């Protein structure tokens, strides 16, 4: 039987085709290996270790910034703040406090003092910088669906 008349199933077993398939398979395996290498694995142990670390980053205007990541317990403190400005200030304060222990102590009741005393120029740069960090809680999603209004009930 000529190769032209072979069924596809039989043609797949021809040595030249098997060699070609082996070549494709090799590429598929290399692709799998590459995908596995970049795949993120959830590792709570590594997360706990990272959360306890003090991170350092060089800022073009502010210089070397040291900060700690916010943890679940911090969200409770942040939630105790009365308004959005206080919550924002408390998030920044808590992140900085972990790295600069000699910062004065502020509570949800007194965080407005931190707000009033921190220089605005540096504060705006700091907010912008910390907002981009993964441990910052108050980052808003740039996209999202608008709130669905509940239908009015007739009386």
């Amino acid at each position: 039987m000529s190769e032209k008349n072979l069924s596809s199933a039989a043609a797949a077993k021809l040595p030249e085709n098997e060699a070609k398939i082996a070549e494709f398979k090799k590429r598929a395996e290399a692709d799998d290996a590459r995908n596995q290498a970049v795949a993120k694995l959830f590792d709570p142990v590594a997360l706990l270790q990272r959360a306890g670390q003090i991170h350092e980053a060089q800022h073009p205007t502010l210089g070397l910034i040291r900060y700690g990541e916010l943890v679940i317990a911090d969200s409770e403190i942040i939630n105790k703040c009365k308004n959005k400005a206080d919550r924002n200030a408390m998030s920044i304060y808590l992140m900085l406090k972990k790295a600069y222990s000699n910062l004065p102590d502020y509570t949800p009741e007194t965080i407005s003092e931190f707000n009033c005393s921190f220089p605005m120029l540096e504060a705006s740069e700091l907010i912008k910088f910390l907002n981009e960090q993964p441990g910052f809680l108050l980052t808003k999603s740039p996209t999202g669906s608008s709130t669905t209004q509940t239908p009015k009930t007739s009386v």
Partner: protein
Amino acid sequence: MSSPVPVLGRDARLIKSSVAIGYGKSIKVSADAEEIKVYSMDSLQPAITAAGKQSFKWSCDRLFTDKTYLALLMAGTKFDLVFAPEGDAEGDTIETWKNCSILHCERSAGEDDGVLESISGSAETVEFPAQS
């Protein structure tokens, strides 16, 4: 129309005129048929029910091929999909989905030439292995 029944996902070989032109990862195939119902004038129940026009669909996660064949496949070149539903490439249980065409595919920006992702299409007919 009846709902498609997916078959086991496997890796498939693409054959065009007895030449291997590619390799598909995690292939899934499904066959469905239109439902035919014929009613008599005096009954609400169908007098005849039968399976009508058939369609054969396939999809695979990734398809590896050559640059040359990639253009041909995208241009609508038909090929045969050869795979073993039971996972035994050496045995007699090899299925051939004949005259397949690509109806949908995706490509990631970072992929090298010759790789397609999330490919799906249809086949004209299916050749099942002969029962021994």
